[in-house]
C-alpha cells in the first residue's frame, strides 16, 4: 500500500493503478479495437503469404500449409497457459482481484487454441502419416494441456465464492505449469513419429524464409486476437463481479 501511494505521487505512470477493475475497465475498452485491428492486419498479410507467396513443400506439397494455423495455435496454447499461470501467481502474491480475472478470461481462449492445434494436427496427420491420431509425445502433451485448461475452468465454475475460486484456480494453474516444460522438452525426450522442431533459436531454421514469415505473422495475428478477446472477456467478468459497486451502476453504457 505504501508503495502505491508514494509512486502515485511521483511523476512516473503508476502501473498499480490499473490493477483496480474500475480503472482497468475503460482502459480495456480503449485497447480492444487496437488489438482487433492489429490481429486483422497480421491475419490478412499472414494468410496472403501462407497461401500465395510461400512455395509448396518439396515433400509434403500444399498440404503442409495447415502448419500456418497449426503451429501458431500450439504456440499460443502454451503461451496462454504460461500467461494464465503468471496472472494467477500475481493474484496470489499481490492479492489483486484483476489478476485472477485475467487468468479466468484467458482460459477459454487457451482451451480453444489447444483444441484447434489438435484438430488441425489431425487434418495434417491423415494425409502425411496416414492416421488422424498417433500416440506421439507432443500430441499427447497437447491433449494434456487441453485437459489442464478444462480442469481449470471446471474448478472455477464449481466454486461459488469467486475469491476462493480465484485462489484455488491459481494453485491449480501453478501446479499445471510444470506440465508446459514437459511439453516442450518431450520433443527431445521421446524421439518418435512427430518431426523434430524445425524452428529453433540457436541454428538457422530449416525452412524457407517466406514460410517462416507466414508462420510468424500468423502467430502475431493469434497473439493479438488472444489479447483482444481476453480484454473483452475480462470486461464482462468485471461487470459481472462488480455489479454491486457504484462505479458500475453509473456507467454510461449500462444506463442507456
Amino acid at each position, binding site marked *: 500500500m505504501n508503495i502505491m501511494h508514494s509512486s502515485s505521487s511521483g511523476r512516473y505512470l503508476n502501473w498499480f493503478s490499473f490493477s483496480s477493475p474500475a480503472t482497468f475497465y475503460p482502459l480495456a475498452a480503449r485497447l480492444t479495437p487496437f488489438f482487433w485491428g492489429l490481429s486483422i492486419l497480421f491475419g490478412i498479410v499472414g494468410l496472403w503469404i501462407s497461401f500465395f507467396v510461400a512455395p509448396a513443400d518439396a515433400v509434403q506439397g500444399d498440404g503442409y500449409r495447415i502448419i500456418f494455423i497449426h503451429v501458431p495455435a500450439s504456440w499460443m496454447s502454451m503461451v496462454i497457459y504460461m500467461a494464465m499461470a503468471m496472472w494467477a501467481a500475481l493474484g496470489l502474491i499481490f492479492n489483486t482481484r484483476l489478476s485472477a480475472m485475467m487468468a479466468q478470461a484467458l482460459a477459454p481462449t487457451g482451451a480453444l487454441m489447444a483444441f484447434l492445434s489438435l484438430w488441425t494436427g489431425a487434418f495434417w496427420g491423415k494425409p502425411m502419416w496416414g492416421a488422424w491420431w498417433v500416440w506421439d509425445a507432443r500430441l*499427447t502433451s497437447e491433449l*494434456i494441456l487441453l*485437459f*489442464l485448461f*478444462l*480442469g481449470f475452468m*471446471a*474448478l472455477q465454475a*464449481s*466454486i*461459488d465464492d469467486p475469491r*476462493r475460486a480465484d*485462489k*484455488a484456480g491459481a*494453485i*491449480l494453474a*501453478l*501446479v*499445471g505449469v*510444470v*506440465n508446459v516444460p*514437459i511439453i516442450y522438452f518431450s520433443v527431445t525426450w521421446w524421439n518418435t513419429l512427430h518431426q523434430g522442431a524445425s524452428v529453433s533459436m540457436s541454428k538457422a531454421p530449416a525452412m524457407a524464409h517466406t514460410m517462416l514469415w507466414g508462420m510468424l505473422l500468423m502467430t502475431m495475428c493469434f497473439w493479438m486476437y488472444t489479447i483482444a478477446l481476453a480484454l473483452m472477456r475480462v470486461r464482462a467478468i468485471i461487470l459481472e463481479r462488480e455489479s454491486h459497486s457504484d462505479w458500475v451502476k453509473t456507467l454510461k453504457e449500462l444506463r442507456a
Partner: protein
Amino acid sequence: MNAFFAIIHREVLLVLRRKSEALTVLFFFLIVTSLFPLGIGADVALLRKIAPGVIWVAALLSTILGLQRLFASDYADGTLEQMALSPTPFVLLVGGKITAHWLLCGLPLVFLAPFIGIQFDLDLETLRTLILALLLGTPILSLIGAIGAALTLGVRGGGVLLSLLVLPLYIPVLIFGAGAVFATSAGLDVGGHFSLLAALLVLAIAFAPWATTAALRIAIE
C-alpha cells in the same frame, strides 16, 4: 517431527478401526485388474503386453478413490481448522496425512501388484521392476492427489472434479512407471525410467505438501 508421526499414528488408527474404507480401495484395484482379462480374452501374450498399463491405470484410479476421504472428514468436523491454527507447522501435519494416505492406500497396492502380475503371466524380473516402480510411483500419486483433494474440498461434485483435475497430472508417472515395466519385459534398460520417476518423486515431495497446505488454507478460510 513428533507431530508428524503422531498424525500418521492417528490416521492409521482411524483406518484400522474402520477397515472397510481402506479395504474397498484394495478390492477396487483387484476387481478392475481382473476385469481386463475377462473383457479382452485369455490370450497370454496379449495379457503380458497390456499388464503394465492395466496395473498402473488401476493404481491411479484406486488412489483417486482413496483421496476423497483424505481431508473430507477432518474438514467436516473442524479438525482441519484446529490443525491450521495449532503452533505446529501446518505443512508438517499435512505431510503426515499424505504419508498416512500412502501407507494405507499406496503401499498395499505395491504388495498386491505381484499377485496381479502373476495373473497376467509376468516373469520374475518384470515383477521385481513392477514392485520397484510402484514403490517409487505411488508416493507421487498420493502427493499430487492431495493437492487435488485439498482444492476440491467441500466443492459441488468434488469427487468427479477431483479425478478431472488430478488424472492429467498423473500422466507422467503413468508413462514412466508403466514404461519401466514394459521395458523390462522387452529386455531393455530401465535405469532412465527409474531416474525420471525418482526425479518426479523428489519434485513432488518438495512442492506438493506446500501446494496442498495453501489449497487447504483457502478452503477453510
